[in-house]
């Protein structure tokens, strides 16, 4: 429905009620009409001023651009005249050394948002009734959401789309990482492809009768590459490591991402023995994957972990502390070792490859996960239906911590240094050595408050993520397209790309 931009105020000149006590009505009407004409002239002049103001502003911006262009041309002119007489070096090296020319195409964004609405339409809009003042109720809410958003949320669709795009980019990245790893594995192992296909069918066969009845696989292939592989009865798979590797790269992993698989799904369509992830997106498959060559075996992250973690967390505080301290040599089957310990080393390995700046922030955040990690584990163990699937806390949130504000549990950073820090992480751990003992003593209490910590972390991570990520359509879309169509050969390049 088209809205009139500028409405000249008194629309009907003569449609005014006449006062009763008038003798000469015709004259009265004439005078009233003339007064309205004057009012119309007034509103007309106001709109004319508005129109000319907008045009003037635009022309002014163009004038600035023209001036700067003129200066650039003058400089170029000088430079070109200097160039001509000199001998130009046409060596091949010079050509290669030159910076590749990239033309910057500006994309117009936010064209039709609230802030770009013309003034007269904004005035018209302001004459409407405002929505009820539900924002007064916001401080009384527990979950911290804006009360008005439940009534009317103008950014709802954009948020929805943004979440979907970010999800897609993450999934695409995961797929690429896994493909890359697959290629690496293939090159390491030779003729493993045919075997891969066979095992899939076997697995489906086994699953045919019902997931609960599948027994542990005992084929030589599986035992061969991975001693890490655990019986498929849903115990801690060793694929978590891969997940962690992937997640440490992508800094956008949500803590709530863990697939919706039920706790009892011990046997997600297990990836081939070599730990090739079958289905990146899905959920249950991400759980049990064989991880190669990873020093630690972080338990997979079951979906119910994070959501259920908040509730039953407190009663199950005690179990985690011991495994917490020595994550390294633990095999998953017995007790699900807290994944976070494994994560930082992995993360360090990855982070120290090429990116220096963001490597600092990552160490603190992963350690944040320490208190949080046991909690989801506890909660899921309480709610675990079939088998003893250790509910590893969703590694992603801790894994790719955005280089946001240093997390409050700084001592926890130091607690992390307990694990075998990879050489690059040594300088950091050394710096953090003094408070280590404090972190240890506070560990139990930190675990007990784990779920609270996790909530804060999640929020903080999400906020940081949002602050880092440009909130434009163009940025998000361009990132997603870049991920989709890029040949992601090097993880370092991806790191740089993602670390904004």
């Amino acid at each position, binding site marked *: 429905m088209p809205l009139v931009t500028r409405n000249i105020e008194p629309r009907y000149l003569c449609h005014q009620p006449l006062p009763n006590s008038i003798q000469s009505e015709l*004259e009265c*009407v004439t005078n009233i009409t003339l007064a309205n*004409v004057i009012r119309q002239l007034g509103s*007309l002049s106001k709109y*004319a001023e508005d129109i000319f103001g907008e045009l003037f502003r635009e022309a002014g911006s163009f004038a600035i651009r023209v001036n700067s262009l003129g200066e650039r041309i003058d*400089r170029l002119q000088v430079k070109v005249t200097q160039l001509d007489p000199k001998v130009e070096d046409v060596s091949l090296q*010079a050509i290669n050394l030159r910076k590749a020319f990239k033309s910057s195409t500006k994309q117009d964004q936010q064209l039709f948002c609230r802030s770009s609405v013309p003034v007269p339409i904004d005035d018209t809009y302001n004459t409407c009734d405002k929505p009820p003042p539900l924002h007064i109720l916001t401080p009384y809410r527990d979950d911290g959401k804006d009360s008005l958003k439940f009534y009317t949320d103008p950014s709802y669709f954009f948020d929805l789309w943004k979440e979907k795009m970010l999800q897609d980019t993450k999934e695409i990245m995961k797929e690429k990482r896994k493909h890359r790893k697959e290629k690496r594995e293939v090159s390491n192992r030779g003729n493993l492809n045919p075997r891969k296909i066979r095992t899939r069918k076997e697995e489906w066969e086994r699953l045919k009768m019902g997931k609960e009845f599948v027994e542990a696989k005992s084929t030589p292939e599986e035992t061969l590459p991975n001693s890490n592989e655990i019986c498929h009865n849903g115990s801690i798979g060793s694929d978590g490591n891969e997940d962690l590797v992937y997640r440490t790269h992508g800094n956008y992993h949500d803590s709530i991402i863990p697939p919706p698989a039920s706790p009892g799904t011990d046997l997600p369509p297990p990836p081939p023995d070599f730990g090739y992830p079958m289905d990146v997106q899905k959920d249950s498959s991400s759980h049990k994957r064989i991880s190669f060559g990873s020093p630690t075996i972080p338990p997979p992250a079951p979906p119910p972990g994070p959501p259920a973690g908040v509730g039953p967390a407190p009663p199950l505080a005690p179990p985690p502390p011991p495994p917490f301290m020595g994550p390294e040599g633990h095999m998953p089957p017995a007790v699900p070792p807290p994944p976070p310990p494994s994560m930082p080393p992995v993360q360090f390995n990855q982070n120290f490859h090429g990116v220096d700046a963001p490597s600092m922030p990552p160490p603190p955040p992963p350690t944040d996960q320490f208190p949080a990690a046991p909690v989801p584990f506890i909660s899921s163990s309480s709610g675990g239906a079939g088998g003893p699937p250790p509910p590893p806390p969703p590694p992603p949130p801790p894994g790719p911590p955005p280089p946001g504000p240093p997390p409050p549990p700084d001592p926890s950073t130091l607690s992390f240094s307990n694990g075998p820090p990879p050489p690059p992480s040594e300088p950091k751990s050394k710096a953090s050595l003094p408070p280590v003992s404090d972190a240890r003593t506070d560990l139990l209490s930190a675990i007990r408050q784990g779920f609270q910590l996790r909530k804060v972390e999640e929020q903080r991570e999400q906020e940081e993520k949002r602050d880092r990520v440009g909130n434009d359509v163009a940025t998000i879309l361009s990132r997603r397209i870049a991920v989709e169509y890029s040949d992601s050969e090097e993880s370092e390049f991806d790191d740089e790309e993602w670390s904004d």
Partner: protein
Amino acid sequence: MAGQGDPVQREIHQDWANREYIEVITSSIKKIADFLNSFDMSCRSRLATLNEKLTALERRIEYIEARVTKGETLT
């Protein structure tokens, strides 16, 4: 009607004159409004053309600068 003729007639006459006067004024107001609208539209279209030309020029200058600099920084 003779009795009402003069004063009423005069009044009606006067009223018609007034109305014509008001009509002249309001039609000129409408012409002004029309002029303003068309001026606005034409100005915007010309500014948009200018914008396009400016953008094209800027891109060409960027390219030329890249060709000419040879790795130095443009002051």
